């Protein structure tokens, strides 16, 4: 009975402990027609197999499994009582679990164009369990899932976050905790595909204060493994964005089904080709960014001219996904084309707490206004150089990008002049802000910073400047932090900020960027080098 599961090893015996459904195979059976044996025979017949051959096959299975030939009738019975039909065929078996989700990823998959959803579930995968799509419900649907798991080697799609709140009772399906369902379903899966940002790292539900205890699938399974509840974790493919883009899922399916391989994954287990470049890299409005042409107000002339939305809070520069290329809804549009700044919904990092896209990117219309990080609201001027310098990181990366492509001499000047603000209708943001910024950099307001030239500086100079600024910004961080956080958490965070800050260093032509971030609870400080988009792989 301990045969290693493989979808190529022939029919598998359903274990005796399996609850038996009352239903038989229903292919081509009319409502209320005779019981299942007849239908199963029909199927065998259609496939050119007579009952005698079938019993011989069962005998073969018994021999393979080292069972007594007396078991043959029971094996036959087990197969006949299947509610999922044949356990082997041209379709790869698949289970789609919905956990703490909005069903948006299922909805999104229903918008797939080539192939469409019907082709996927009729001609590509045998989707034996999907709450939103399945014909069956309740007990018989659970039975279908159980039989699929028993047969092994299925693709496990997971939509939505796991909820650990109230010992896992924040999510109960079919009288079982979501956490238990996932541990069980993962046990014999060929691979797990985490569909959408919630499944990757908890998504918005993990946003501060994370009241339900949301967590991504991969980190949860790591915990379960560490606790000895599961032995192995199947390969995991993370497919973030909110919802998941059906084109991304289909790309994964093509890899798995047609090419019989897993897609190449990056360090976050995301398909590298899809999540390798920033939105900004491929944005059709990129030219306006380079030209310093920005939308400062919705409903304005600049908006009508499709100027860059960076000044409205677009998170495109820091968000990696190929949305501008694949677009959405059968390529009819995408966020920036509808005039909305990218909300960064692809930002999901299962390896770090508090890196969900909402905490990372809200307020979504905020650029240098307030940057929220968990419960912490960070001062706008501080952010430019500060601890949670995600925007700044992106801009520095962008600067390197411009340097690498030879578009600017010596690299971008880290927004010292904020060229895009020069045309801002509000003086406080435009010329005045630029003057203030320059003063600060020149040391009048920020005395420890090295004086910068406005233009033509080297990236390493930028790095020094921003490092200095980060170290000096602790007072502001303290003030901002106290608004939202407990004094102790603030102190801990600010301390770390002071030490690590946010730095840009250029070594041997390769930029290394350190970023420091906190979790929503403020108890964990994370810091690591992040890879420049220009570094290494291009």
């Amino acid at each position: 009975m301990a045969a290693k599961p493989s979808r190529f090893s022939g029919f598998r015996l359903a274990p005796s402990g399996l609850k038996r459904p009352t239903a038989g195979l229903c292919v081509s059976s009319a409502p209320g027609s005779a019981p299942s044996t007849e239908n199963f025979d029909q199927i065998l017949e259609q496939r050119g197999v007579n009952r005698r051959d079938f019993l011989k096959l069962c005998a073969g299975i018994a021999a393979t499994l080292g069972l007594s030939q007396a078991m043959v009738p029971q094996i036959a019975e087990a197969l006949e009582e299947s509610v999922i039909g044949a356990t082997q065929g041209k379709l790869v078996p698949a289970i789609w679990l919905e956990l703490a989700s909005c069903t948006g990823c299922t909805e999104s998959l229903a918008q797939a164009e080539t192939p469409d959803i019907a082709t996927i579930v009729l001609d590509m995968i045998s989707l034996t369990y999907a709450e939103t799509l399945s014909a069956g419900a309740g007990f018989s649907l659970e039975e279908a899932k159980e039989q699929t798991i028993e047969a092994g080697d299925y693709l496990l799609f997971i939509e939505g976050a796991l909820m650990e709140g109230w010992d896992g009772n924040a999510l109960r399906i079919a009288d079982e905790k979501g956490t238990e369902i996932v541990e069980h379903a993962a046990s014999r899966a060929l691979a797990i595909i985490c569909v959408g940002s919630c499944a990757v790292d908890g998504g918005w539900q993990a946003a501060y204060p994370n009241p339900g205890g949301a967590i991504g699938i991969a980190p949860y399974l790591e915990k379960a493994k560490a606790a000895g509840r599961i032995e192995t974790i199947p390969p995991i493919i993370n497919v973030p964005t909110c919802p998941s883009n059906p084109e991304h899922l289909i790309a994964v399916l093509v890899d798995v089904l047609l090419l019989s391989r897993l897609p190449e994954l990056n360090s976050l287990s995301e398909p590298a080709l899809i999540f390798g470049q920033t939105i900004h890299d491929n944005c059709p409005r990129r030219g306006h960014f380079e030209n310093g042409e920005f939308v400062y107000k919705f409903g304005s002339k600049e908006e009508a001219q499709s100027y860059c939305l960076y000044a409205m809070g677009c998170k495109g520069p820091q968000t990696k996904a190929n949305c501008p290329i694949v677009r959405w809804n059968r390529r009819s549009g995408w966020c920036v084309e509808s005039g909305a700044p990218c909300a960064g919904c692809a930002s999901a990092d299962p390896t770090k707490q508090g890196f969900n896209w909402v905490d990372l990117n809200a307020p979504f219309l905020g650029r240098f206004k307030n940057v929220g990080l968990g419960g912490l609201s960070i001062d706008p001027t501080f952010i430019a150089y500060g601890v949670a310098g995600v925007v700044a990181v992106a801009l520095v990366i962008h600067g390197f990008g411009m340097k690498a492509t030879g578009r600017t001499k010596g690299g971008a000047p880290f927004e010292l002049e904020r060229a895009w603000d020069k045309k801002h209708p509000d003086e406080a943001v435009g010329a005045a802000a630029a003057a203030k910024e320059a003063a600060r950099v020149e040391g009048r307001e920020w005395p420890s910073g090295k004086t910068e030239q406005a233009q033509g500086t080297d990236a390493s100079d930028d790095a020094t400047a921003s490092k200095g600024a980060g170290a000096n910004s602790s007072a502001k961080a303290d003030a901002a932090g106290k608004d939202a956080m407990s004094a102790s958490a603030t102190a801990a965070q600010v301390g770390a900020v002071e030490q690590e800050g946010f730095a840009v260093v250029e070594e041997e032509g390769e930029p290394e960027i350190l970023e420091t971030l906190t979790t929503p609870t403020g108890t964990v400080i994370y810091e690591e080098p992040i890879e420049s988009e220009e570094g290494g792989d291009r």
Partner: protein
Amino acid sequence: MAVEAIDTEATDAAGSDTSNTETSGVETTAAEITGGATTASPGAVRTSTGSTISGQSVIDPVNRIEGHLRIDMQVENGVVADAWVSGGLFRGMELVLQGREPADAAYISQRICGVCPVSHAHAACFAGEKSYGIEIPNAARIIRNIGEGAQFLHSHILWFYNLAALDYVNPLNALKADPADATDLAMSVGTSTADFFALKERLAGFADNGQLSIFSGNWFDTADNAYALPPELDLIATAHYLEALEMQATASEICGIVGGKMPHIMSSLPGGTTWVPTEEKLDDILFRAQRIKEWVAKTMLPDTLAIAPFYLDVAAYGKGVGRYIAWGVFDRASRDPLDRYLPAGVWSFGDGAVQPPEEALITEETPRSFYKDSGLPVNPRQGITEPQYPKEGASREGRYTWDKAARYGGLPYEAGGLSRLLVAYNNNNSFVKENLDSLLSYLSEKAGSTLGVEALASTLGRTAARNIETYYIATLMVEWIQELIEALRSGDSSTFTEPLSHDGEGAGMWEAPRGALYHYAKVRGNKIEKYQIIIPSTWNISPRDAQGVRGPMEEALIGVPVHDLKKPIHALRTVHSFDPCVACAVHISEPATGKTFSTVTSPWGVK
């Protein structure tokens, strides 16, 4: 655990008024319907030859809905005697929104539901705009109607064909159909034809492979023997199931153009819209809207009329509480909720006139829900969200759901398409009145008895009414796009209004496809201090209140026939007729035997 189906007289022990034991017992055969053009009116109740089956019946999870729902039913003598509907997920949206900006609420709150995100965005925008003290420009109003309308079309089409239809249509039975007869039948009932030969071949290939895919664990063989369509009609409906997948995607393309992506549009923010209607884009959405309108008129409505006569028994159960609320949706230039294309109103059978809704009469209470507060009814403006799962676990007698009990004037009310149409009908909306009357007269003819408006208060009525609404909205969509073009031509092109104040409060009362939607925000310094949401399914899957009064779906399940405790198809149809947007659970149980029947979805799924 075997299913019992005992042929004795149903005794209707539950005192239900929905007994449908008067049945002809006649089954329509394929020959009958394919033999002639207009014989498709069996009107037979196939299941209720009388049954004394009793016990608990549970549907958990309820399939083909949004979220996790559990239905627990107590069955006595073949009908549901009591029911508990529970939602199995807590997510804590309101808590996550605190401290963020109104614009963030418009983005984040959409993640409550991937089926009706646009409605959440708009309710959040209304709440934000009231807090800001502003009203959006006229062109933005029309653009919102277009995005909202596209979502309604997407949702209703997907719901009817791809979610609900599998309770009535057996695609595997279509394997027995003669494609030529199917073509004749389609023409005779006035619905669109398709390449039925190719489809049958495709289905045969699927069946031949033997793997059941989404038909795994199906209920086509329920002891209720409830799938009644002739194979040819099953084949037609399956063809249109596939077409519907295309049409709902086309509707979503309109959202994709206007809102960037669907689910979860990006362009609607407090103040207006970020979308700039260029000529090219207007053309793109107009073409799609016209295509959908034509398809709804030529396929969806005729299909409804062709299938309904086989399921007239479904009109005999699922009544519910008979009280209806609608906050109204699709603003006219007046911005008056009572003047909306689908107006705001509160209406009950026997009450006469439609009353304007009063926000102060809305309360939520949690005596049977997993929350910590006192359990006393409070207006959402005073309400708090403090979750607490009981140590002793969920129970029928105690707390059993993550859903709160929403009440209006202290009573449970049904929300949804039927509510909107009944309010519009009683407001003398000519389109709605004409089409509902026409539907009723058609059904009366098929049933051989006069069916009044009260017949709509049923599982079948709720289902059919939603399709009439689809037609209404498809028609309006084309009008709105033309209205927008006219507005732009006359220079009325402003699309965004800046806030007048960053302090304030207000409620956005709007409609999602599933019914009345309420977002309340209190804003200080452009930060949300307090946020409360009451979604449509909070009304519909509401648990009992302190007085022990059941919620609308629980009430609708009472009296529903059950002949197969494991596959209670009529209960499932009734649950689906509400188009619930939450996972929650319904249990049925039988005092005599202690057996119960449960369907589980989770009310927590909504927030």
